[in-house]
C-alpha cells in the first residue's frame, strides 16, 4: 500500500508491504528498517531503527496523524492511494473555489460584509475572537460576497466555512 504523507510544505511517499508477518517500509523509495511496537494502546510506541531507539507517541486514526519524537511533534496528513484518487476527482469537480475557512476555533464577534457586497483585496470581512484576541479576517483577493456561512456571535471550529467570494468579472 502506498501512502502520501504531507508534512509542513512537503509531501513524502511511503510504501508499506506486508511480507510473511513483517512490514517492509520505504520512504521516497529508500527502504527503512523499523521495529514498531505499541506500548499501551493509548499512543506510546517503542521504535527501533538502525540501532537507534525512540519512545515516540502517535495519535489520530484518520487522515491527520501526530507523531511526537523527542518533544518535537510532526503533524501529518495521510492519504492512501484510493483516497488520493478520490480527492483528486473531487477537486476536479469543484474547481479552485472561493470559500474562506476558519484556521482556528473562535467566535465571530463582528460581520463586516453582507451578501452581494464587493470587497477589495485585504478588506476586513469579519472579526474572529479566539483566546481573548480579536483577529481581522481579510479578503484574500478582490471579489463579491456570495454566501455568509456564519452569523455574528456564533462559534466556529477549525475548518468551518466562513465566507464564500466569487471572483470579480473583469
Amino acid at each position, binding site marked *: 500500500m502506498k*501512502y502520501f*504523507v504531507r*508534512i*509542513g*510544505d512537503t509531501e*513524502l511517499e511511503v510504501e*508499506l*508491504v506486508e511480507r510473511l508477518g*513483517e*512490514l*517492509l*517500509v*520505504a*520512504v*521516497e*523509495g529508500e*527502504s*527503512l*528498517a*523499523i*521495529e*514498531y511496537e*505499541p*506500548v499501551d*494502546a*493509548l*499512543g*506510546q*510506541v517503542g*521504535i527501533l531503527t*538502525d540501532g537507534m531507539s525512540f*519512545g*515516540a*507517541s*502517535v*495519535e*489520530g*486514526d484518520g487522515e491527520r*496523524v501526530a*507523531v*511526537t*519524537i523527542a*518533544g*518535537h*511533534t*510532526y*503533524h*501529518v496528513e*495521510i492519504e492512501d492511494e484510493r483516497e488520493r484518487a478520490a480527492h483528486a476527482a473531487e477537486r476536479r469537480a469543484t474547481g479552485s473555489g472561493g470559500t474562506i475557512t476558519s*484556521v*482556528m*476555533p*473562535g467566535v465571530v*464577534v463582528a460581520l463586516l460584509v453582507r451578501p452581494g457586497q464587493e470587497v477589495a483585496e485585504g478588506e476586513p470581512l469579519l*472579526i474572529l475572537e479566539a*483566546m*481573548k*484576541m*480579536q483577529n*481581522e479576517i481579510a479578503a484574500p483577493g478582490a471579489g463579491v460576497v456570495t454566501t455568509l456561512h456564519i452569523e455574528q456571535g456564533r462559534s466556529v471550529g477549525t475548518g468551518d466555512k466562513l465566507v464564500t467570494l466569487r471572483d470579480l468579472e473583469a
Partner: protein
Amino acid sequence: MFRRILVANRGEIALRVIRTAREMGVETVAVYSEFDRLALHTRLADRAVALGGSLPSESYLVGEKIIEAALASDAEAVHPGYGFLAENAAFARAVTDAGLSWIGPPPDAIAVMGDKIESRRAMQAAGVPVVPGLVDPIDDAEAVVVAAEEIGFPIALKAAAGGGGEGIRIVREPSEIAVAFRTASGEASSAFGDGRLYMERYVERARHVELQVLFDHHGGAVHFGERECSIQRRHQKLIEECPAVVVDEGLRERMGAVALQAGHAVDYQGAGTVEFLFCEGEYFFLEMNTRLQVEHPVTEMVTGVDLVREQLRVACGEEIGYGQADVVMRGHAFEVRVNAEDPASGFLPSTGTVKNLRLPGGPWVRVDSALYRGMEVGLNYDPLLAKVVVWGEDRAVAIERMRRALAELNVGGVRTSVPAALVVLDQSAFRAGEFDTSFLEGLDLSQPHGGRVELAVAIAAVHRHTAARRQALGADRGDRSGWVARNRMDRNWPR
C-alpha cells in the same frame, strides 16, 4: 495560620496553591465550573464547591458566587491565583467586606497598579523610571497621530484598563494608527468595558526583566531577585528564566531597591512583581502585577523560597522574619509554558481531548501541571496546560536539562507550544543570552523541526496502516500489534 482557605481559580495555579496549603496543614476549598467537575484542582482539594455554568463569566468571574462558596464552606481566606479576579480591586474589597481574609495586596494598591495611567503617575512621583509617553488616556485616533510626533515611533497602544498584553498594538508609522486604534479600542471595550487607550514609546530591542517582591503588614519588605521573560509573542510569555543574563549583582541590588520603592509608594502588602523594560542597562517601569505570577517557580527554584507559603504567611499577619541578606540565589532556572496552541500556525489555539500523556521527570525537573488523561481542552479558558521548570547549577546546564525534559514530554490529542520552546533552546543566540522581546517572532516555526521527518512519516504511515488493518479484521480495540520491518538488500525490494 488559616485553618481553611478557598482557592478562587482553576488549572495549574489552583493546584499550586492547594499543594502548599496542604503542606502547611491548611485545608483547601476548590471551586469549579461544570466543565471542571473532574479537573485535578477539584479532585485534589480537600473540599469542592460547584459554581455552575461552564463559561468563566458564569463561574470563576462571578465574585458573589465565590464569596458565597467561601462562607458556606467555612473558609477563612480567599487565594485568587492569577487571572480571573486576581487583580479586581472590587472583588478584593468584597472579600474583606464579607469578613474573609484576602491573600493578596490591599484593594487600593490593586486599583492604582491596575490602571496604566494612575500607576504611571504614582511611579513618577515615587522616583521610579517610566517609559516616555502620554500620561492621560486617549479616546480617539486623531489624538494619537498628534502625540506620536512628539513621542516618536514606534509607539505602543494599550488598554487603559488592561493587563497581561491583551489589547496591545504596536504602531510603526502614521498610516497604521487608524486600524490599530480601532481593533485595540474594540478589544478593550469588550474585555474591560473601557475603550480608552494609553500611549507610550515602544522600546525596541527591549528585554523584559521583572522583580519579585514581598511586603508584610509590619513594614517589612524583601525582593527575590529578577526574572527575565523576553521570550514572548504578542506579550504572551513562552520561556522565563531566573536570574537574567543582563543583570549582575550590583544591578540586581539597584533594581531591587527600585522595585521595593514602587511597592512602598502604593502601601503594598503581599507578593507582587514589578515589571521593567530593560534596554542596554536602562530600565523603565512597565507595570506591577499585584498577584502571584505564572513564572514564579523559577524564582522559587533559585532562592529556595516557597512564594505561596510566604503569601499565606503575610496574609495572616506574620512578619517576613528574614532580611534581604538571607535571600540567597543559587544556580539558574527556566520555565517553559505548555500552552494549547500551534506554533506552526502562528500560535493559534488548539483544542481536543488529552488521550495520551507522558510528563518529564528526574533530577531538578519540576512539573506544575493541570493535565490528566481524558482532559478536554476547550476555548473557554486560558490555554496554559502545564509548566515545565528546571534548575541547573548554571545557565548552560539548565538549558540542556530543559531540552532533555521537553524531549520526554508527550501531550497527545492537542497541539502545544513545546516545539517552539525547543526551537528557541536550540538557537545559538539564545544560548549566548543575546535576545530581546522580538526574538520569538523572528523564528520560522512553520516547518517541522527536530530533524526526524522521514522517521515520523514512516511511523505515521505504519500507525495508519495498522489501524486500518485492525479495523478490517474487527480486532479488539485494545489490541497491541507491533511490526518488525527489516531492511534487507538481498530481498531486492523496493527501490
